[in-house]
């Protein structure tokens, strides 16, 4: 089984659009939407949810105001400014669950509770089993949720002898992106032909190198700025990153998204078809 992570650094370059189209072409891959704080794959690929679970990965401090003597020890120790003595109260969104306040409180007014910060699900779709999740708005632990999703998706891929696990990654280079890349056999970087897109590709390339995940690249909407697309090609040559394809700007992509369909025709669909052909070498090795 091969694991391919689709990433970009910059948001909105077309990771989900390309990933969904690749999963249609792959026929029977296992899919994981690892952009857990803004998941979109389910808007293009739907099916019947087979399993759904709450996600609890950390704890949160809760304060019993009737016991609290307002001594202030907890607020002084908290590095996350989560404790307010007027009230007194603990801000759930600031609390990292380190437990220090509860350990220090002389009157046991603080207790740690399990924190359910999202849900994850396994959905059977025509394009393969899809693992997806959603963090509650404002909640943390996205890296842990990505790690959990990928573990379940890998287990399923191995059980069902699937040839490919496709991972739709989050933007950025922080914990969820690191978790999405971790253990992948390769990364497909979807680049946007802009100064921002190039700066962000350079950073995600550095992350791939650091994590020993071989990168490959494709340029989306290349014709919106052919000059910048050429700069990306040059970057790929310099960095010895295989350039697998160029996808043109195509209004049809928006029409597909608007009706919840995967791009499988038109100029963009054909270009993604060629990208899929270019990926065959990676899948065979």
């Amino acid at each position, binding site marked *: 089984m091969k694991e391919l992570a689709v990433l970009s650094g910059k948001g909105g370059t077309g990771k989900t659009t390309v990933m969904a189209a690749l999963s249609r072409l792959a026929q029977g891959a296992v899919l994981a939407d690892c952009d857990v704080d803004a998941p979109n794959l389910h808007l293009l690929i739907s099916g019947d949810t087979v399993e759904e679970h709450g996600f609890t990965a950390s704890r949160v401090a809760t304060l019993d105001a009737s016991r609290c003597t307002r001594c202030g020890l907890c607020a002084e120790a908290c590095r996350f400014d989560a404790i307010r003595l007027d009230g007194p109260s603990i801000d759930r*969104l600031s609390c990292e669950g380190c437990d220090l306040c509860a350990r220090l409180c002389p009157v046991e007014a603080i207790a740690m509770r399990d924190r359910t910060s999202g849900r994850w699900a396994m959905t059977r779709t025509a394009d393969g089993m899809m693992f997806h999740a959603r963090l509650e708005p404002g909640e943390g632990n996205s890296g842990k949720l990505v790690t959990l999703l990928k573990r379940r998706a890998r287990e399923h891929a191995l059980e069902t002898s699937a040839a490919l696990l496709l991972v739709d990654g989050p933007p950025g*280079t*922080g914990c969820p992106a690191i978790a999405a890349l971790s253990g992948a056999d390769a990364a497909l970087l979807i680049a946007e032909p802009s100064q921002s897109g190039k700066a962000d590709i350079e950073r995600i390339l550095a992350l791939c190198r650091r994590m020993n995940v071989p990168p490959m690249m494709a340029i989306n909407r290349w014709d919106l700025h052919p*000059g910048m697309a050429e700069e990306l090609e040059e970057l790929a040559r310099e960095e010895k990153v295989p350039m697998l394809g160029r996808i043109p700007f195509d209004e049809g992509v928006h029409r597909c998204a608007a009706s919840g369909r995967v791009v499988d025709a038109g100029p963009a669909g054909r270009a993604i078809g060629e990208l899929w052909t270019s990926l065959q070498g990676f899948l065979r090795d």
Partner: protein
Amino acid sequence: MRIAVASGKGGTGKTLVSVNLSAAAGLDLADLDVEEPNAFLYFGDGSSTIVPVSRPVPSIDEGSCDLCGECARVCAFNALVRLPQRIRVHEELCHGCGACARLCPHQAIEEVDHEMGVLISTASGERRLVYGRLNIGEANAVPLIKAVKASLAPGRTVLMDCPPGTSCNMVEAVRGSDYAIMVAEPTPFGAHDLALALDVLERLEVPHGVAINKAGMGGVDIAAMCAARGTTVLGAIPFSRDIAQRHAQGRSLMDRPEDRRTFLGLWGAVMKEMRP
């Protein structure tokens, strides 16, 4: 006054709105998208100052440590592991809560600085830009986002270009803002993620309005969605290949009067919203 520019979905045009609103209205800018900072690309090559930003991580004094393992037991993030001969510190897992140092029965733990990124300040004429850049491989951007916010000069109005998503980074960036401009694109993905991001702002009680970018593309009626939620629409930036291309090149949109008017109109709408 701090005005966040955020979105939920990535790539909707947060940086486009931030840099052009800053130029049109003469406002300072802070780029809080420290995993992928891009606003500097629009601020010219003026001189900049770079300051390293660190986070605290434990360092074990092996002379005082008797390997009791209390630090590993109290660490909620599994950043400390007791081995037969020593305590191993996984700096990448450490959240810097300080519990290990504080609770070590032998005072054998000292917190030391671990560089996580840099804070960069520059200017374009009267306008200041400050931004963070997270080191590659660092997982947690929140302390750096806090450092950028802490460096902002009080008393000046500043636009804050925020990270995408609805999780810790975005929460830390928009928290405590006087107002948030949500940049939305009229696509199904854009509408879906906008709704999630608006939930966060409501939870944080940050007043907000929506700027529609790439208006005319994508087929989703963001204005109707906002009307149904009772959310103000501040203005719209049309979808145009010309705008997309100039922005892609790292150019300001201020050289076209009609684009300047669009951003001045947007700023007027924000000012009107913020008036008590």
